[in-house]
């Protein structure tokens, strides 16, 4: 790694501008990146590759692993979808309207970024548990959230909301009012303008927000495990199963599950990014 770094430095040193420090800064960056991120991830790759197809299949076809993967990806998709659907109108209200308390609410959108996940986890559990603030009234109409997969979605809604609001917000702020005014002056109703003029301009940002919220949701652990109930085959998420396998010293199982999660989320993110690029270029879906 360091040898590669120095060769990069030598070739580019000549093309570089008059500023000093490329060798030092790039060298330090690459060394630190390798030590903290790349070599550890390489260990995961090597360990999982060493198991061979048979070893992989034995773990990947285990019904408990499959149901944990299905649960993690399913709940993350549902939560990211809901977050996109509620995050966009929230962003619209925060950008377009003035009302008392607006700037406080706007600042609080970032709370999930700053609040430790374990704190969010115990707070959400306390709210939706049978003796909590919302638990009893929801249960009386037949909705049970704490210790069920719905609880997982609830935790992921909290974790993911800022991603969808914060990616749509700057796009709404920079929208050209001329387009809307032109549509209105040509006789389009407000609703038609919103749907035909504004929505297509915001859609790429909505997709970005969706994919960020989804990626975060798939791997989320801290806020989920408190509220999920963690019943195998029912409410046991993939990251928790990794932890359980590690506690049982089943390093192979943990490694394969981690690789499956990485591969699956990269594939899905790649699909979303492709879709987003097509939408941004104005092509039809």
């Amino acid at each position, binding site marked *: 790694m360091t040898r590669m770094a120095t060769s*990069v430095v030598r*070739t*580019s040193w000549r093309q*570089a*501008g*008059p*500023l*000093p*420090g490329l060798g*030092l*800064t790039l060298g*330090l*960056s*690459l060394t*630190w*990146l390798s030590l*903290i991120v790349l*070599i*550890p*991830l390489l*260990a*995961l790759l090597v360990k999982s590759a060493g198991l061979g197809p048979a070893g992989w299949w034995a773990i990947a076809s285990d019904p408990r692993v499959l149901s944990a993967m299905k649960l993690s990806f399913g709940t993350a998709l549902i939560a990211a979808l809901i977050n996109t659907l509620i995050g966009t*109108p*929230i962003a619209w*209200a925060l950008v*377009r309207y*003035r009302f008392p308390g607006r700037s406080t609410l706007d600042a*609080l*959108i970032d*709370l*999930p*970024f*700053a*609040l*430790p996940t374990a*704190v969010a986890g115990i707070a*959400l559990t306390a*709210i939706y548990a049978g003796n909590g*603030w919302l638990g009893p009234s929801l249960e009386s109409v037949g909705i049970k959230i704490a210790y069920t997969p719905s609880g997982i979605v609830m935790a992921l809604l*909290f974790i993911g909301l800022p991603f969808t609001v*914060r*990616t749509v917000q700057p796009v709404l702020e920079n929208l050209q*009012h001329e387009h809307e005014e032109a549509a209105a*002056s040509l006789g389009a109703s*407000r609703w038609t*303008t919103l749907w035909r003029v504004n929505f297509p301009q915001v859609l790429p940002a909505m997709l970005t927000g969706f994919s960020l919220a989804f*990626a975060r949701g*798939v791997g989320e*652990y*801290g806020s989920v495990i*408190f509220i999920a109930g963690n019943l195998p085959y029912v409410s046991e998420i*993939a*990251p928790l199963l*990794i*932890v359980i396998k*590690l506690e049982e010293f089943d*390093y192979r199982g943990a*490694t394969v599950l*981690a690789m499956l999660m*990485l591969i699956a989320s990269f594939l899905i993110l790649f699909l979303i990014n492709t879709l987003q690029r097509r939408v941004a270029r104005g092509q039809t879906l």
Partner: protein
Amino acid sequence: MARPSEHTSAAITDPAWLRWSLIGAAVALIAVVILLPLAMVIVEAASAGWFAYLDAVTESDTLAAIRLTLLVSVLCVPANLVFGICAAWAITKFRFPGKNLLLTLIDLPFSVSPVVAGLVFVLLFGSQGWFGPWLREHEIKIIFSTPGIVLATMFVTFPFVARELIPLMQQQGADQEEAAASLGAGGWQIFWRVTFPNVRWALLYGVLLCNARAMGEFGAVSVVSGHIRGLTNTLPLQVEILHNEFNSAAAFAVASLLTLVALLTLGLKLWLERRHGEGLAHTPRSH
């Protein structure tokens, strides 16, 4: 009635019914999804009274957790700061092949589950890991000990400072630095006298977010910590232990300390965005 001040044209103003239902929906959703958990922490922490609260946060295991959390942050944040500055300097002031790959790799920890971040260090340094036997021979403990917690936290916080600096320094270009260099300034002088004043608020912004995550990280730390009371529990892990022991009041008391850090972070972040917004990168902020 509140009117959006920047909209002069009535044609692009939403009808009142739409405006007020959207405002109502936004307020209700933010209240339920975000404010309710915050309120829960405060109410539950206060529920057992002032003395019980004081007892809970000054209990010896909690004090040990506070010390460990501060230690982790004190080690991770400066390392992240130095890395962020180095990476941003190399990436924004020079041209070299593979720059986009480097940018992608820096962001990589954001797309990895925290649990996997912990797992990779167990695979390296755990008893069955690559360096496990060697570490045991030399009686060095990394996993289930402070070094492992620090490493896992460094992994998950890796992109924070670099992410704030790189877009800003890209927007600013290298003209000022090159002018200083042509006048004979040395590398350190250029950085301290020209670059640093231009990026200090973005630097502080990155440090703030990095610190919040370093103090609050749960998944990655949980995997490598071993949950040894008074030794390897950070504050978030202490919250989990108290919660699992059904000691709800104490769990929420400790959680309220972390909530205080989060609210302080949000307050400072807001102040930076309001007062020094021009000194921050103009990108959608999502971490």
